[in-house]
């Protein structure tokens, strides 16, 4: 009797787990398979696999729907945002963790303040106006600089990493003739490489997925559209209702790179997620 009820519990448990997994994967599978279908199949098919694989959808999205441009913009923004954020936060975290300088407390309070206060879209307007004054609203650098400026979360992650490196190492290096800068570049950064890689992944993903900021910057300058913006704008495009297959192909251009990295490095994705909250 106990064995039967235990077996039953197991079965129910697995049905629950697999059904949940199915629901989680459903939209992603639908997007990937749909991107190879004809529009008619997407809108009326109700079949999982495409009848004939329409690889041409990607060519169309890439050329006619301008996804080549969006992809390039997304890569550009994400790469420079990642490099900039990592550099700035690593430097700040090194100083904050290793030196007791005057005003350090205030600096930390300032960082946590920006992390918790959110007045939403209000800040976009003064940020945009500043970029106009610097003449950066017509390039992607306006977007990149604003994305880099929102680095409080990454900063606190970095602090955690620096705390993990013993100070005795600095002292030993100091005796060996290193100075403040060379300890940072030659000793600490190389030791932090695995942590930096994970942080880079996190930052890159954030920039790659960012929607609102590039949307605001590309309103008057469509050349600045990134993948999420260009894709969302397809809804208003030429007969959007009849272009589902291209929208799905476009969505896949955005999600497939992340998916491929995720297959190989999903533990890193998950690790940083927990770390980011712990601060």
């Amino acid at each position, binding site marked *: 009797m106990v064995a039967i009820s235990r077996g039953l519990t197991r079965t129910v*448990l697995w049905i629950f*787990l697999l059904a949940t*997994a199915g629901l*989680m*994967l459903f*939209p992603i599978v*639908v997007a990937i398979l*749909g991107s190879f279908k004809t529009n008619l199949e997407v809108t*009326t098919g*109700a079949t999982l696999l495409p009848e004939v694989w329409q690889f041409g959808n990607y060519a169309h999205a890439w050329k006619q729907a301008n996804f080549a441009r969006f992809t390039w913009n997304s890569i550009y923004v994400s790469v420079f945002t990642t490099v900039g954020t990592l550099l*700035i936060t690593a*430097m*700040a975290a090194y*100083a*904050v963790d290793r*030196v007791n*300088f005057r005003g350090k407390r205030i*600096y930390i309070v*300032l960082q946590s*303040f*920006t992390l918790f*206060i*959110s*007045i*939403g*879209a*209000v*800040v*976009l*307007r003064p*940020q945009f106006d*500043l970029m106009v004054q610097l003449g950066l609203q017509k390039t992607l650098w306006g977007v990149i*600089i604003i994305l880099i400026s929102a*680095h409080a979360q990454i900063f606190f992650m970095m602090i955690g990493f620096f705390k993990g490196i013993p100070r005795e190492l600095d002292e030993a290096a100091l005796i060996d003739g290193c100075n403040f800068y060379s300890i*940072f570049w030659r000793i600490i950064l190389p030791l932090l490489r695995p942590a930096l890689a994970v942080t880079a992944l996190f930052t890159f*993903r954030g920039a790659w*997925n960012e*929607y609102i900021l590039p949307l*605001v910057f590309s309103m008057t300058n469509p050349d600045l559209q990134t*993948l*999420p913006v260009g*894709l*969302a704008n*397809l*809804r*208003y495009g030429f007969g959007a209702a009849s272009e*589902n297959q291209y*929208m*799905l192909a*476009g*969505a896949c251009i*955005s*999600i497939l790179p*992340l998916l491929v990295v*995720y297959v190989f490095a*999903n533990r890193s*994705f998950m690790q940083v*997620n*927990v770390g980011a*909250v712990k601060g």
Partner: protein
Amino acid sequence: MKRKQLHAYVFTFPSLFLTLVLGIYPIFWALRYMFFAYPGYGTPQFVGLDNFFRVARDAQFWQSVQNTFVYAAGKLVLTIPLSLILAVILNRALRGRHLLRAVYFLPTIFSASVMSIVFYIVFNSYNGILNQYLMKLGLASSPIDWLGAGNAMLTVIIIAVWGAVGNYMLLFLAGLQSIPDDVYEAASLDGVNPLQRLWHITIPMLGPVLQMVIMLAITVSLKGYESIMVLTEGGPFGKTEVMYLYLYKLFFPLTSEGSSVQNIGYGSAVGFTTALIVGLVTMIYFWISRKLNETY
């Protein structure tokens, strides 16, 4: 020693500069303009507290606040139990648990706006993929109007839950791993069944983690609007209009909707009010949930 201090300033300067100019200055900018009538052009006129009187009377805004609470409550009520149950199950030595964790976490890595486009095609009322399947399987006789006035909020909540469960599951898993095994061993000697174990041991032991995770979930759901903006733009008839989306439209009116007009002075006042509401909710939550933080 002095020299080292100087080095430290050099190293913190880029971060400090960007934070002050692009993080702090915009807040003061808003604190100033919320006392002005300023539609975005011309000379700003000082109007004292007029913008706030208008906020108090703005039925559309308070409707969006109400919608936000419905949205956040719906998302929380579904996400927290589901992710906690998944975490509890996957915390055990189960075959395939690493794969399952990776699958449940997968939705969280994608752009909310990009996935909203996919969901737009999935939930489309007339030729959406979900309706095709439901009708083919005989679960619906006619297309369900997922994005219509009656269901749009539910649809938006389902999508939000889809994107959030994996994240909270992972945070709970991290919390569960800090509960020592011998507590469970002692309980199993006493003949405790799995449900009792969950209710009387796991949840109380998880108290502080639970408190933090729920607080995170509350603030995130109150602030979220990106996915709704792409999917419904707050429609139909403002049924899914949440407060941060309403705020966004005051600064950057959406192209397909003629009703919203740019208004920077008033928008700043609305922004201040929304931030205040989020802060207030967080404080009330902390007061109510203080029992969770008692250490066992």
